[in-house]
């Protein structure tokens, strides 16, 4: 087994190695995370106190829009694809992804897509300013000229995600080591398989909706223009048909990650493996029939509102099953609390809190009071930051010794965790209150009565921002001077990557398939 690897810039440009591509995805998403985070800092600085201090309202809208787009499409989704690249072949005993050249493409599209998107900030008229949900007609008739670059950018990253998803599905279906049946696959692989199906189902719908925007803007169609017989509300229906599954695309792989980490540090098998698989699949299926709960205020008939309300509340059931299974995994285990475990536990607790506010938002008659306020902002940041991002962070800490053969500094890792935990709550918990007090989202200035919460949220946000820079330093330190990791760093870890592969993972692994029992 030769461990030859090319060197220099060409290694990264031409690579078809799943580990290299995974690394690039992770670094790319981290850069985007800091970029989107910097925009969040601008937003929080402006909202630190009432009055307009730093930016004018038009630019503020560009910041909220770009922050959302960058975080969703640039940070969270690529980080999950990065983990998939690193882990799926290792966990199913495959030598690489099934379609390595397509893999290279799907990564290298991204930097171009996001350069295009970010360049719109410097264009005349500014960047897109209509929110990441880009509701028509604000995003069609009334949008700045840079919207066309936004549309092109969305198409490019959509193609990238679709190629990534196809690769994952083909790899999982065709590349498993002999004996690795579907119901033996690690849960991370399962959640990614389901995510990949969601991706190929809904990313084309997103592509469709931005294409309609493009033709509305330039080619005289009127999909979303009432004057030509169109309907702006239809935009929202199509957008959320994509948008709701999208939120599960962002969080399902994180479910998979914690389902690997919690058993490892509980030194106990994952509780209810098959019910976990079925719960994930039912969440994914339900996500296709709940989209209109994002639009209770548009004036739907009561029957429609009732349907979407009840369907949405049903999602709480399989999600609850997952949470209970994680807890049952810890129950009577032999727990230790290393950094990845801490992040996973925080994931379970804070994601559950985000789930609670989700159930509240699902209830249509009260949703009229929550809708489009900071309560919603609090809700989705609770499921995205401690959800998707803590999930990825936990994964990086957990598999870092396997990937690099080096060990991060556990003390600094714990600092990273505790600071993140404190600041994430300081940032997002007060947003529940400002929302309940009546503060609408996406506003650059507000009445005194919302001042306290906003100040706390801003302080929390600055701390949270700095903490992530600290994460960067920790990782760099570990890569450069980390202690040598043990052959099997975590005694409770299971799976092919831990049991059938040396540490660090060789550049070419599983050239001959491992034995699965």
């Amino acid at each position, binding site marked *: 087994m030769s461990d030859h690897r090319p060197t220099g810039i060409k290694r990264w440009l031409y690579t078809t190695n799943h580990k290299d591509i995974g690394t690039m995805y992770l670094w790319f998403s981290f850069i985007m995370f800091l970029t989107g985070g910097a925009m969040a800092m601008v937003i929080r600085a402006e909202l630190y106190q*009432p*009055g*307009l201090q730093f930016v004018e*309202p*038009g630019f503020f*809208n560009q910041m909220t829009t770009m922050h959302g787009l960058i975080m969703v499409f640039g940070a969270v989704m690529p980080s999950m694809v990065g983990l998939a690249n690193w882990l799926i072949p290792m966990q199913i005993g495959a030598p690489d992804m099934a379609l390595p050249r397509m893999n290279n493409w799907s990564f290298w599209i991204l930097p171009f897509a996001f350069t295009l998107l970010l360049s719109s900030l410097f264009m005349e*008229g*500014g960047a897109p*300013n*209509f*929110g990441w949900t880009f*509701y028509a007609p*604000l995003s069609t*008739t*009334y949008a*700045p*000229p840079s919207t066309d670059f936004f549309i092109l950018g969305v198409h490019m990253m959509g193609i990238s995600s679709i190629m990534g998803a196809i690769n994952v599905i083909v790899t999982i279906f065709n590349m498993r080591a002999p004996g690795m049946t579907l119901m033996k696959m690690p849960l991370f692989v399962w959640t990614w398989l389901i995510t990949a199906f969601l991706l190929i189902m809904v990313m084309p719908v997103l592509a469709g909706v931005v294409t309609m925007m493009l033709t509305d803007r330039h080619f005289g169609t009127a999909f979303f223009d*009432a004057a030509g017989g169109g*309907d*702006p*509300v239809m935009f929202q229906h199509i957008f959320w048909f994509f948008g709701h599954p999208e939120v599960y695309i962002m969080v399902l792989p994180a479910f998979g990650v914690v389902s690997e980490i919690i058993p490892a540090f*509980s030194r106990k098998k994952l*509780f209810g*493996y098959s019910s976990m698989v079925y719960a994930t699949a039912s969440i994914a299926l339900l996500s296709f029939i709940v989209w209109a709960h994002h639009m209770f*205020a*548009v*004036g739907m008939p009561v029957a429609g*509102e*009732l349907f979407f309300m009840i369907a949405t*509340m049903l999602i709480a*059931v399989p999600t*609850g099953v997952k949470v209970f299974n994680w*807890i049952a995994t*810890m*129950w*009577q*285990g*032999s*727990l*230790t*609390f290393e950094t990845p475990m801490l992040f996973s536990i925080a994931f*379970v*607790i804070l994601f*559950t809190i985000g789930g609670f506010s989700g*159930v509240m938002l699902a*209830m249509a*008659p009260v949703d*009229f*009071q929550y809708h*489009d306020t900071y309560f919603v902002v609090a809700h989705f940041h609770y499921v995205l930051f401690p959800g998707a991002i803590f999930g990825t962070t936990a994964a990086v800490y957990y598999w870092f010794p396997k990937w690099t053969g080096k060990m991060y500094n556990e003390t600094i890792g714990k600092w990273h965790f505790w600071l993140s935990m404190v600041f994430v709550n300081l940032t997002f918990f007060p947003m529940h*209150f400002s929302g*309940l*007090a*009546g503060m*609408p*989202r996406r*506003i650059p*200035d507000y*009445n005194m*009565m919302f001042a306290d919460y906003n100040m706390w949220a801003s302080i929390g946000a600055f701390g949270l921002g700095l903490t992530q820079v600290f994460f960067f330093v920790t990782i760099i330190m570990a890569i450069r001077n980390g202690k040598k990791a043990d052959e099997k760093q975590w005694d409770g870890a299971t799976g092919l990557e831990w049991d059938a592969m040396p540490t660090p993972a060789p550049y070419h692994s599983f050239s001959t398939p491992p034995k699965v029992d």
Partner: protein
Amino acid sequence: MAIRRKLIAGITSLLSLMLGGAVQAASKLNMRPGVTETSIEAFELHMMVVWVMVAISVVVFGVMIYSFIFHRRSKHPTPATFSHSTKMEVIWTVIPVIILVYLTIPAVSLLIKMEDASNSEISVQVTGSQWKWHYKYLEGDIIKNEISFYSNLSTPREQYENYATSGAADNVNYLLEVDNHLVIPVDTKVRFLVTADDVIHSWWVPELAVKKDAIPGFINETWTSVPIPGIYRGQCTELCGKDHGFMPVVVEVLTKPDFDKWLAGKAEEKRVADKAAADAASQNWDMAKLMTLGETIYASKCAACHQVNGEGLPPVFPALKDSAIAKGPADVHINMVVNGKQGTGMAAYGAQLTDAEMAAVITYERNAWGNNTGDTVQPADIQAFKAGN
């Protein structure tokens, strides 16, 4: 004795102060119950869900924390080996279903009540436009004294641009005040027909639990019936462009006699305004007078987008300085101001400004910043333009 009494009094007052503070803090931490039947029911439903969620958290997180303490490796070195229990899995599927059903039942009946706008006594058309609301009362004869008006933010620009130095902090209704309140009578079912004339807006008054999207080309219905006179404040809750944060909603609820008085007052106001407009149109204004009034109007209505120096924020908000419109034929310029421009932020000022104000601001734009066309536009010109003559 006296000392003891004082001490007790002191402690009680301190306690009541703390309690009062806590109650006040708690009220700031929560949704406001509001004043209408539906808002109070929505609040009660909200509280019910909150308590159910708190109870679930206590149980779920309690079990977790117990496990962290008693099942840590130092206390519990040998892990158990179970990984499956059909009985438990059925239990924790069924219990959430029961809880959800328990929550759904009151939600359904409240929802049905909230969506029933029938048998209203008064109808008001609410139109959102960038970045203000327009209200039109749909009562009485359509031809004579139709009451309709715009409702603009009345917090001065100075206050939000220089928050610290302008005394804005003392303004309790900062960004929640408008020049013309929507006035409705108490204990009356009022139906709102909500629409928009550019992008989507959303009309929200938290204390009435009314939130409805205003969608261009479509009308939506909602309603309220307010039992207590007072002033209720809300905001636009759908991102609608640059000044989305600056278009509040203010509803003033009056007793029925006061409401009738207000109606009569509005009719009188309209008569006076019509007369003033006619007088203004009959006069010939000189350049200085037009420029002075024009500058004030420009500062309050136009400068937010076109900027004080007339250079705008191109390409979305074009410059007026040296622009083809401001230096070209007056008709085209008047048309732009009176009717606005579709697909842009340029609103139609025909119904928002008087003829004299429009004449002044157009004259100002044609002569300021070195545009120096030397034209004066007279109120009579605007009147003639609007009449289509």
